[in-house]
């Protein structure tokens, strides 16, 4: 019996905790992705690069001497106008063409390539690792948890709750949901649809940027950081249901736990094929995902 407890304490629990940290991180990125898809019907292929952009902006600002805590607020605020301009200046240009899915996907894909190379140009190809803002750790039930990871889980959960609150419990969120459900009807009821669209895109991008700031001390900053991360975020969004916030949370936690357990019992290198395999199977049997999407008219 005590062996089982020890096994849990020293092998299983730490692994699941790593999975949980990754899960919260992935959910933060996936939330923006799913909101943008649910409302605008746009697959933002450059979302991973916006995640990286947040991390790089934080890196640049912290080298000027700004403290981490200020960056947590400042970076999303900087990302908001960036996202707003991208939506108004680029996405809207192809939004009303017949082939919206394909053309917006291609456009954001091009933007992603551009940004990734721009990072390499400005910051160089090598990874940077910012100092961990909170050092030390907490020991609970014999399990050692680095404080920053604990902080990340708490802050991440708070952000997720705040986003869900805004979308489902405020007037602003009601406008967003109305615009997602039926654009024309919402517009005729006085919802400023264009600003809601651009605003939601900016909000999603800002969330990705915030995730970039939060995760940089754990996963480092490098030009292709978005590319590796976004695959997982896409998988989460697809399995959870494109456009569903609850889906992103459930699928995010589920898939990262599967990944953590697979790494432990089979091999870390097989966790990716298994997770992507789940995505393919999900698309085959239930393409709308676990929770379906924000209702479309």
């Amino acid at each position: 019996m005590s062996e089982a407890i020890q096994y849990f304490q020293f092998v299983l629990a730490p692994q699941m905790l790593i999975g949980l940290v990754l899960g919260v991180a992935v959910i933060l990125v996936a939330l923006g992705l799913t909101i943008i898809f649910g409302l605008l019907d746009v697959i933002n292929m450059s979302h991973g690069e916006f995640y990286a952009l947040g991390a790089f902006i934080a890196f640049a600002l912290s080298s000027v001497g700004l403290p981490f805590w200020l960056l947590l607020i400042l970076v999303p605020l900087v990302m908001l106008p960036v996202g707003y301009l991208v939506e108004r200046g680029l996405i809207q240009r192809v939004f009303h063409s017949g082939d919206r899915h394909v053309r917006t996907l291609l456009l954001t894909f091009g933007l992603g390539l551009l940004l990734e190379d721009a990072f390499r140009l400005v910051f160089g190809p090598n990874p940077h690792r910012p100092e961990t803002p909170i050092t030390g750790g907490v020991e609970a039930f014999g399990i050692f948890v680095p404080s920053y990871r604990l902080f990340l889980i708490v802050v991440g959960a708070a952000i997720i709750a705040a986003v869900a609150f805004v979308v489902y419990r405020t007037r602003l969120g009601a406008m967003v949901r109305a615009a997602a459900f039926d654009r024309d009807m919402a517009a005729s009821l006085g919802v400023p649809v264009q600003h809601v669209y651009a605003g939601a895109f900016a909000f999603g991008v800002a969330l990705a940027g915030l995730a970039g700031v939060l995760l940089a001390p754990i996963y480092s900053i490098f030009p292709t950081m978005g590319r590796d991360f976004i695959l997982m975020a896409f998988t989460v969004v697809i399995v959870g249901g494109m456009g569903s916030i609850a889906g992103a949370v459930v699928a995010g936690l589920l898939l990262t736990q599967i990944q953590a357990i697979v790494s432990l019992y089979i091999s870390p290198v097989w966790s990716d094929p298994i997770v992507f395999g789940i995505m393919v199977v999900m698309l085959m049997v239930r393409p709308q995902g676990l929770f379906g999407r924000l209702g479309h008219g």
Partner: protein
Amino acid sequence: MVDALTRSMRASHVLVAILVAASLAVAAFGVATNDTFYLRLATEALIFAGLALSVDILLGYTGLLSLGQALYFGLGAYLSALVLMVIPSFWAAFAATAVVAALAGLIGGFIVNRVRGVYFALITFGMAQVAAKIVYNTRALGASDGLIGVPVININLGIASVSSASPAGFFLFVLALIVILYALSAYLLDTPFGRLLIALRANEARIPFLGYRTMTPRLVAYVLAAMVAALSGALYPMLRGFVSPELFFFATSGNAVITVVTGGAGTLVGALYGSVLLTVLKSVIGSYTEHHLIVIGLLFMGAVIFLPKGLMGSVRPLIERMLAREPKQ
């Protein structure tokens, strides 16, 4: 009397003829200057043009965006490399690739054709990712190193034989093969089957009312695209002497999509010109700076916004008009 679609296809043929003429000139120039590097680069451009062609069969005709065509390209490359290492015969490698690609395309087709639109793009993407990770982790396939030491082969053409090590000879051979792949695809897509695909893209719900199945043409188009991609991939190890898991990666699929969209989706010939254009751009910009992706990203975004029909989609109507005038003379 030919209809507008057939005339468009003929205009594409004219553009291919121009490309072939230019390629022959390049080959002659290459032989005259005893060049290896640029002929090899041009051969690679043609091989990736084959991959782009397969993307265009799906995107330009059935309107389905595949983000995972590298799956079949990589499959063809690995299979060809494996066969060549045992039996150094082009025809053995080519035949094996054709058979396996048809089977893989059929299985893949059943999986991906369950969904439409944006989900199709995502499922093709997911499948290619799974394959890429499996190859990357399988030691028998060389894992992250890939397979090295694919032998130089002599391709027996009956009357003559071409060595894969001869820059000009192999370039011309690849050119001939890609043109044949183009011609076969173009022929198939100009039959009533091709019209059915165009109708599918326009309005799938109506097709059953006209008495046609929707699943069969989709599947056939998908298998055709898989075979074109795999057969192009099969040429890769003959050119480079190795294969690496990067051939399966998203970057390979993504490049093919960029090629098609810039060159002109739905024209077939756009895939060929797009690949040449991209290769030239990469090598020209690459000689000044290593950041060629910025330029390509910008160019691609510009093409998506301002030139949705792509380069050949804008040039081809001129040729069509010339072709339409001719009979009156």
